[in-house]
């Protein structure tokens, strides 16, 4: 009978990295086909295979950790490093958009009228829906901390309740932001103001949707008793990601909505 004498996880051979890589090929070339030849079949195929890959890859991780017990303390440490490094890479991603915003807004060109907001742009009032959005995300930060403490204390019902409230706040933010998008008097093609506004807030909104999805998966895992009071890294990773999304919004609000008006 063989057994490992180390705490690491030697993963079974898996096809998902391959299907993931090819789905990336299909998505990128699909974008090109859509832009230049008005055909969406490759893009749709790419997005579908990407979704299938993500579902099966993460399903396998749950099987390996929760059901097969491979997530030792050492393995968990590696997962923590991984999540932190991923979030740091996302911070750099957003840093690019903030750089673009400040580059254009700190020294507005004569073409814009030499002022920020540029001539002709009516910015959104930061004290209306954007302020509500800020309150919504800050509240969701409180409720997710409540959920974490409930989980650590073994209070199953409170954990489910507070996690559900967190998810609902995330959905509320997304709906509010979508309605704001329909109400803006400017579009993405309205010069550099429109470009920086919609690129930064648009990618942020996408990350809110990703974060809400991650939290929803944690909700169903908690329903199915996957988490214990001392071992629940999937939930912690979701919470870290959610706090990151919240902080990015605070920077967006202060820079683009408030200072930029």
């Amino acid at each position, binding site marked *: 009978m063989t057994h490992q004498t180390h705490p690491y996880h030697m993963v079974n051979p898996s096809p998902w990295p391959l299907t993931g890589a090819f789905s990336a090929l*299909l998505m990128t070339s699909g974008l090109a086909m859509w832009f230049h030849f008005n055909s969406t079949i490759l893009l749709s*195929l790419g997005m579908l295979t990407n979704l299938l890959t993500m579902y099966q890859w993460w399903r*396998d991780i749950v099987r390996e950790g929760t*059901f097969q017990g491979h997530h030792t303390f050492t393995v968990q440490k590696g997962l923590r490093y991984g999540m932190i490094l991923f979030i740091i890479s996302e911070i750099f991603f957003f840093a690019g958009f903030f750089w673009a915003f400040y580059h254009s807004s700190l020294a507005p060109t004569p073409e814009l009228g030499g002022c920020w907001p540029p001539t002709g742009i009516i910015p959104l009032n930061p004290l209306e829906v954007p302020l509500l959005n800020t309150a919504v995300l800050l509240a969701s930060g409180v409720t997710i901390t409540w959920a974490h403490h409930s989980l650590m204390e*073994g209070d199953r019902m409170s954990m489910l309740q507070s996690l559900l409230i967190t998810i609902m706040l995330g959905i509320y933010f997304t709906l509010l932001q979508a309605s704001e998008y329909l109400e803006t008097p400017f579009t993405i093609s309205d010069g550099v103001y429109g470009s920086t506004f919609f690129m930064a807030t648009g990618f942020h909104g996408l990350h809110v949707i990703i974060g809400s999805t991650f939290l929803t998966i944690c909700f169903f895992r908690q329903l199915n008793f996957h988490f214990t*009071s001392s071992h629940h890294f999937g939930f912690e990773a979701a919470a870290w990601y959610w706090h990151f999304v919240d902080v990015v919004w605070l920077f967006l609000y202060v820079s683009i909505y408030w200072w930029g008006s």
Partner: protein
Amino acid sequence: MYYKFSGFTQRLVGAWASDAYSPQGLKPVVSTKAPPIIFATPTKLTFESTYDYAGKNKVPELQKFFQKSDGVPVHLKRGLPDQMLYRTTMALTVGGTIYCLIALYMASQPKNK
């Protein structure tokens, strides 16, 4: 006035009574036993004593199931549903890649005006 030894300055420094009553170095030993894992039953009393947790805890039986040493890799461990999903994904991926290469080849042909 109470005193304690500051490990930082290596001198005696003023301290509160609390430090005198639980002196440094003589703090109660932290239990090295891991706290009991709270799995399903909550420790707090709820207003309903009988609670339906929307289904019972199936994790222990799933653990037994997925730990069967049958040599099957984890992505196929459940049998037929896993196989069907894997084959669908692979078929779409490989088919899509072939379609992509053909489309890119055709797109790279110069337009005959």
